[in-house]
């Protein structure tokens, strides 16, 4: 057997060169026809092909932009705002759906017949109705909330009304960014410390308390050093609306709740099947060793179940990210909604559609690459 790049290509290409060349040529020719038709049609309508339109002022409002965006800003900035909105919903949604889904999955397996029956009913109801219907339902629910004056107050400082959810927030806008950055830094340092400690082959000692101290202490000391006031403001009714705190819009709330409730049902099933895939003998062996139920779960069952759960969880995250495109139907300005408006305004359909496909493929590939990395680690640890 010869090796080298030429041999590798020959091996990849396989046989039947004439047939393959014909198929490739047909596909390329078809693609060429479609693109040349598009360009001809665009010329007919007087649209210049290319991405120059991205620098033109967009001229439309975006209801809630995570960055500073005004209608006189460029299309590029509008698209970025839409993309960030999509990423925001997807990130918060995945996190919340995982927490809720794991709780439900464990509840489904609890010995309590009433609890597991309730969870089963929930899962069945969610899985048997279209997601768009659920989103319409949540959208209608959030719009039917009382006016600010009669706002519901489920927790101190939290108000629900038809203008959205009012939450307490830092009085100074910069503080939130600092807290987030410091928390991320603290977590990364703590994880790195644990990994180094493991690498050194030591057991006991450092993790636990030390890690927690680093993860919490670092953000706090950084914040104190930054000099930004850390006062927290509680929303208060003034006139016809709330002031202070932060507002989550009804559209975002409806989208987030809908996506989380939907994905949590799928994740609950994944967690259940993962836990059930661990043989009962493992539970019995752990009990014979004198481990409590909690320790058995944490040390014996979960590590094995995770190997079943993680690949399926990845596809759940990808689904949630793709499903966030339904935002366009309930009026949240996500990527698809901004793209749609841009395409209709400029006529640059080919370019905008290419951007949309490219953005979703990039986000999906990133999520799946990160999860595969994690999955790989799990699998290797299992084999050792």
């Amino acid at each position, binding site marked *: 057997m010869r090796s080298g790049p030429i041999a590798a290509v020959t091996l*990849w*290409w*396989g*046989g*039947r060169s004439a*047939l*393959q*060349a014909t*198929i*490739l040529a047909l*596909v390329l020719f078809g693609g060429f026809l*479609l*693109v040349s*038709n*598009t360009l*001809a*049609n*665009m010329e*007919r309508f007087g649209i210049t092909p290319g991405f120059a339109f991205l620098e033109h002022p967009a001229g439309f409002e975006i209801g809630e932009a995570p960055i500073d965006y005004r209608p006189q800003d460029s299309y590029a900035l509008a698209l970025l705002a839409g993309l960030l909105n999509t990423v925001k919903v997807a990130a918060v949604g995945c996190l919340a759906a995982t927490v809720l889904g794991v709780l439900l999955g464990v509840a489904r397996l*609890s*010995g*309590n*017949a*009433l*609890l597991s029956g*309730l969870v089963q009913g929930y899962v*069945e*109801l969610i*899985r*048997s*109705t*279209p*997601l*768009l*219907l659920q989103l*319409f*339902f949540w959208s*209608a629910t959030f719009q039917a909330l009382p006016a600010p004056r009669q706002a519901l107050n489920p927790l101190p400082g939290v108000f629900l009304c038809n203008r959205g959810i009012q939450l307490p927030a830092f009085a100074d806008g910069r503080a939130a960014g600092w807290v987030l950055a410091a928390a991320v830094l603290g977590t990364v340092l703590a994880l790195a410390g644990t990994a180094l400690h493991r690498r050194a082959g030591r057991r006991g000692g450092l993790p636990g308390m030390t890690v927690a101290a680093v993860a919490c202490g670092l953000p706090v000391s950084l914040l104190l050093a930054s000099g930004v006031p850390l006062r927290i403001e509680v929303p208060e009714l003034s006139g016809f609306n709330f002031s202070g705190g932060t507002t989550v819009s009804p559209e975002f709330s409806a989208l987030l709740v809908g996506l989380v409730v939907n994905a949590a049902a799928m994740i609950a099933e994944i967690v259940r099947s993962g836990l059930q895939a661990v043989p009962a003998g493992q539970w019995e062996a752990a*009990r014979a060793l004198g481990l409590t*139920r909690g320790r058995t779960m944490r040390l014996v069952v979960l590590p094995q179940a995770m190997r079943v759960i993680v690949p399926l969880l990845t596809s759940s995250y*990808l689904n949630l990210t*793709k*499903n966030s*495109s*339904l935002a*366009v*139907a309930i009026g949240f300005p996500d990527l*698809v909604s901004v*793209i*749609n408006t841009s*395409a209709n305004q400029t006529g640059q*359909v*080919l370019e905008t*559609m290419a951007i*949309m*496909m490219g953005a*979703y*493929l990039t986000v*999906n*590939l990133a999520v799946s690459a990160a999860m595969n990395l994690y999955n790989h680690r799990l699998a290797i640890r299992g084999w050792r």
Partner: protein
Amino acid sequence: MTDGVLEATPPANHPLPRWRRLRTSLFGTPLNAAVTLACLVLLAWAVPPLLRWSLLDAVWVGPADRCADAAGACWAFIGEKLRYILFGLYDQDRHWRPAVASAILLALALVSGMPLFWRRATLGLWVCGLAVAVLLLTGEPGGPAVPTESWSGLPVSLLLAAAGLVGAFPLAVLLALARRSRMGGVRTLAILFIEVTRGVPLIAVLYVATLLLPLMLPAGSAIDKLLRAQIAIILFVSAYLAEIIRAGLQAIPAGQHEAAQALGLGYWQAMRLVILPQALRTVIPSIVNLAIGLFQDTTLIIVVGLFDLLNTARTAAKDPAWLGFYDEAFGFVALIYLTVCVAASRYSLWLEHRLQR
């Protein structure tokens, strides 16, 4: 604590009577009792208001002003709007056409659920049935033509799902075979198509079909909007179906390929007579699950302005004379989807057990 655990999981060879098992499961340990009480509180909080709204205080018949005074649901609204929710903008006097078309599609789905009909002739039955349903909707034979803009409601949902699955089938088989082919060029093309399609949301594919497809065609030619959505759905589903079929192909032992070769069968003969029939049979439950998802996903055609079952219900609730009965409209449609999808998923479970034997 340990005693509680042991008590909670009695040995399987001494089954306790049902009520004692239930009592242990609900109140066996203090934790279980607390969980049961919490669940009961939740139910007591949620169920009575729901029952009062949907049944006790509901208005079942009568005009709109009777509903305005009632505290409960207005099911009279559903009665009044039933034909609109089911058939939408279709000409009032000829509602029998969408009704018969829907019945044909539902009957086809029921018939193909029986293992007796898992044969090649059923595919022909589907093609004929779909053709008849489409003809009925267009107004043929003997009737003025009905433009696809006024096709709406249940038949559109059923048609898009059924034609989506049947249309995607040949493409999906080719894609699955190409993805497992030893020819690198063809394999790469198949992988590219499948991964790109699975990586973007259905809404993106629908937008591409409705906005970009007209631009891609030579000047002067046009494709109907519903047909464009149908093409988008077929392409989208074919990528997912191809992966299911690939899983089925992987489950066929290599010996089957070798035996087919030893009998002197060529590649296509072996596939058609030996490999594919076995591969497809093993993945029927997965295909049923895909069909359930597809039936639900057809609701997304709302975003390109087409009227499926969900959209007709939403539009019905916008009628100024019966304003704002969204809960009733969505509840009714949810009930339809729930019935169809729960039945289908039960069927899928039954099938899995049957095929495992």
